[in-house]
């Protein structure tokens, strides 16, 4: 291997260099800005995490798995996963091997940015060696890999269904430029390397192409235009990149360590939120996932469009999109890069200014007495259970009745905290983004619960459960959802459940499943009572019932089709009974279901 040019330079590298310098400085500035926007304590935490070995390993693993191999996408759809990892990983390897080549053959050029990229132009093969052939083969192999990915990407634009996607995003104009330039890079590289393969050497791909090209273009004058085109494609791609969805490529590398540092969205537009927004690859997986998708009119209200509008600062649309969402969290659950669609929206809502600000300071918690029985030290700690049914359960008293009946049958001493009505847990207010108001309610309820002397707080509403777990400071009191509690009662033998021949399907309520990660306990409970069948989409991918309090603007009339869609998903295996563990899901499903819908407490109570 020897250098063909003493200068090691040709003008065609300019477009690439301009693009590269632009994108690097853009990213550097962006990085500094995001880090500066982080609250002080978050920033400290981030820097500490960068030097903590455990997080370092995690960061490297996550970046490798998510950014290069796209493991999450593989899990979703093999073809889609292959497409992504072939391009990302292939390209990455091309760069890595390119650098290795430079280091091996022309180490003095290693400080030139462009050299590894255009290596084949600048060198001539002097002798055929095993080492050279090996690298040539690797390079051609990874180029082929990338090209196969590009081919699939082109095919995907025509037939997205093949990739498990019913709907994809509508690319913007700049997205298209980015897309076409990205598509052009590797065929052009192949072409350019094909022209130079007889000089610089090559393997099965480039060499073969060289032979074909030589058969009708036996003139090396075509070489330079091809390298120019390759460089231009790269340059254009890098220049438009910050303004296209491809910005996710560099941003995700920042997002992963930020997330691993345990940082949460604290500001609707800055810092972590911004990193999330720019990490969105606009893949559109969230479009199919969104329960509102059953109505075509809502497609543009999905997270991917929220991110797009956030990048454009289109306030009107941002408000519309963030207010409509049911906050079921499914987009967050399936997002390959970890954009938290629900939290982003709550953050947007929290920015809003209201002229009327509810205030609950006047509420006297003494009006809501809890009997001092729970504070009695002679009562066993296990039995100091405080049952909080919540507002929604008040509208489905069969749940609280069943729950009470179970507690009585299991011999648990309990107190019904809101039998005569109580304060709202604050989660609905929080979902509306009115965090101060929600906090006030949290404080009031904390006061009541603390005073009661309970050791366990039992909840039958997942909406309450989530905020009690996430926002309440109830040290020394176990907060437990009734699905978990019932399972515990059954496991400990306090509750004997008889099995019937009925088959049940369990609907994972958004706040319980995706919100709190409880999937197995309700299923174990139901297995004790009968047969369990599964919905076609379940657990993390369960479909929101459509009744969610998360949405502010979705009217009653617009929710029906969502509920029907969720029901048809639940009934694919023809269960006899639809069981859920949320009073709101229960009410919503009951409205349109063709078979009984009940809460898990009702099912168990009947079978005890």
């Amino acid at each position, binding site marked *: 291997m020897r250098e063909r040019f003493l200068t090691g330079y040709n003008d065609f590298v300019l477009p690439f260099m301009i693009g590269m310098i632009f994108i690097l400085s853009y990213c550097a500035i962006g990085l500094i800005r995001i880090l500066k926007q982080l609250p002080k304590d978050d920033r400290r935490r981030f820097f500490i995490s960068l030097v903590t070995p455990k997080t370092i390993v995690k960061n490297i693993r996550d970046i490798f798995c998510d950014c290069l191999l796209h493991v999450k996408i593989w899990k979703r759809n093999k073809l889609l996963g292959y497409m992504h990892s072939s391009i990302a990983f292939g390209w990455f390897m091309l760069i890595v091997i390119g650098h290795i080549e430079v280091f091996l053959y022309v180490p003095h050029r290693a400080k030139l940015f462009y050299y590894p990229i255009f290596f084949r132009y600048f060198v001539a093969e002097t002798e055929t060696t095993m080492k050279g052939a090996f690298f040539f083969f690797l390079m051609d192999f990874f180029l082929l890999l990338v090209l196969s990915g590009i081919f699939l990407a082109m095919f995907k634009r025509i037939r997205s269904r093949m990739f498990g996607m019913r709907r994809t995003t509508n690319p913007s104009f700049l997205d298209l430029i980015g897309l076409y330039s990205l598509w052009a890079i590797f065929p052009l590289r192949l072409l350019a390397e094909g022209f130079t393969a007889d000089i610089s050497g090559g393997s099965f791909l480039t060499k073969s192409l060289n032979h074909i090209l030589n058969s009708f273009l036996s003139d090396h004058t075509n070489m330079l235009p091809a390298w120019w085109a390759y460089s231009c494609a790269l340059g254009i791609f890098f220049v438009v990149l910050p303004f296209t969805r491809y910005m996710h490529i560099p941003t995700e590398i920042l997002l992963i360590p930020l997330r691993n540092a345990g940082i949460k969205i604290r500001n609707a537009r800055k810092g972590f939120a911004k990193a999330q927004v720019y990490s969105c690859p606009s893949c559109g997986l969230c479009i199919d996932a969104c329960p509102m998708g059953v109505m075509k009119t809502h497609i543009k209200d999905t997270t991917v469009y929220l991110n797009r509008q956030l990048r454009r600062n289109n306030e009107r649309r941002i408000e519309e999109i963030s207010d409509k969402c049911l906050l079921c969290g499914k987009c967050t659950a399936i997002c390959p890069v970890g954009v938290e669609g629900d939290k982003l929206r709550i953050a947007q809502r929290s920015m809003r200014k209201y002229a009327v600000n509810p205030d609950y300071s006047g509420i006297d918690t003494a009006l809501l007495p809890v009997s001092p029985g729970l504070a009695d030290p002679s009562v066993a700690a296990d039995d100091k259970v405080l049952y909080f049914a919540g507002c929604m359960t008040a509208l489905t008293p069969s749940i609280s009745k069943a729950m009470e009946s179970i507690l009585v049958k299991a011999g648990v001493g309990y107190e019904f905290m809101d039998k005569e009505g109580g304060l709202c847990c604050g989660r609905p207010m929080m979902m509306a983004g009115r965090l101060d108001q929600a906090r006030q309610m949290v404080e009031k309820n904390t006061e009541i619960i603390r005073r009661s002397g309970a050791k366990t707080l039992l909840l039958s509403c997942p909406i309450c459960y989530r905020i009690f777990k996430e926002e309440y400071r109830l040290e020394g009191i176990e907060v437990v959802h009734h699905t978990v509690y019932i399972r515990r009662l059954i496991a400990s033998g306090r509750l004997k459940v008889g099995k019937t021949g009925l088959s049940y399907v369990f609907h994972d309520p958004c706040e319980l499943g995706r919100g709190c990660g409880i999937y197995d306990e309700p299923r174990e409970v139901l297995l004790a009572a009968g047969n369990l069948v599964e919905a076609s989409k379940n657990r993390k991918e369960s479909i929101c019932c459509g009744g969610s309090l998360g949405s*502010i603007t979705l009217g009653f009339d617009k929710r029906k089709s969502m509920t029907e869609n969720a029901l048809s998903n639940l009934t694919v295996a023809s269960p006899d009974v639809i069981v859920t563990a949320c009073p709101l899901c229960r009410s919503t499903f009951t409205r349109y279901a063709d078979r009984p819908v009940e809460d898990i407490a009702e099912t168990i109570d009947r079978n005890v």
Partner: protein
Amino acid sequence: MDFGFKISPSSAVNLDNVDLSLYDRLHEVEPDIAKCIACGSCSASCPAGRFSGMSMRKVILDLQRGRQKEAVKMLSGCMLCGKCLMVCPRGINTRHLILAICKLYGED
């Protein structure tokens, strides 16, 4: 001159003088407000009503009659729990309505 008594203003709501411009904007944002039939389901199920006298039925009516102050005062007890949304026979999106009122109408 102090006679020990005063001319009190009429307690009647004069619909001619009611300024409904804010109400009309609210109606644009949430047209459901016009569907209320004052059945009282919302007030009856409202957990805040017990502490603050909050009544969605009265809020809607007050706004329709131009009594904004009373409506706004009542709303400051709302906990946005969504029970009214669940029970409304007319399917009024009460939570959106409440938030829209909180946004449009001032404390004074």
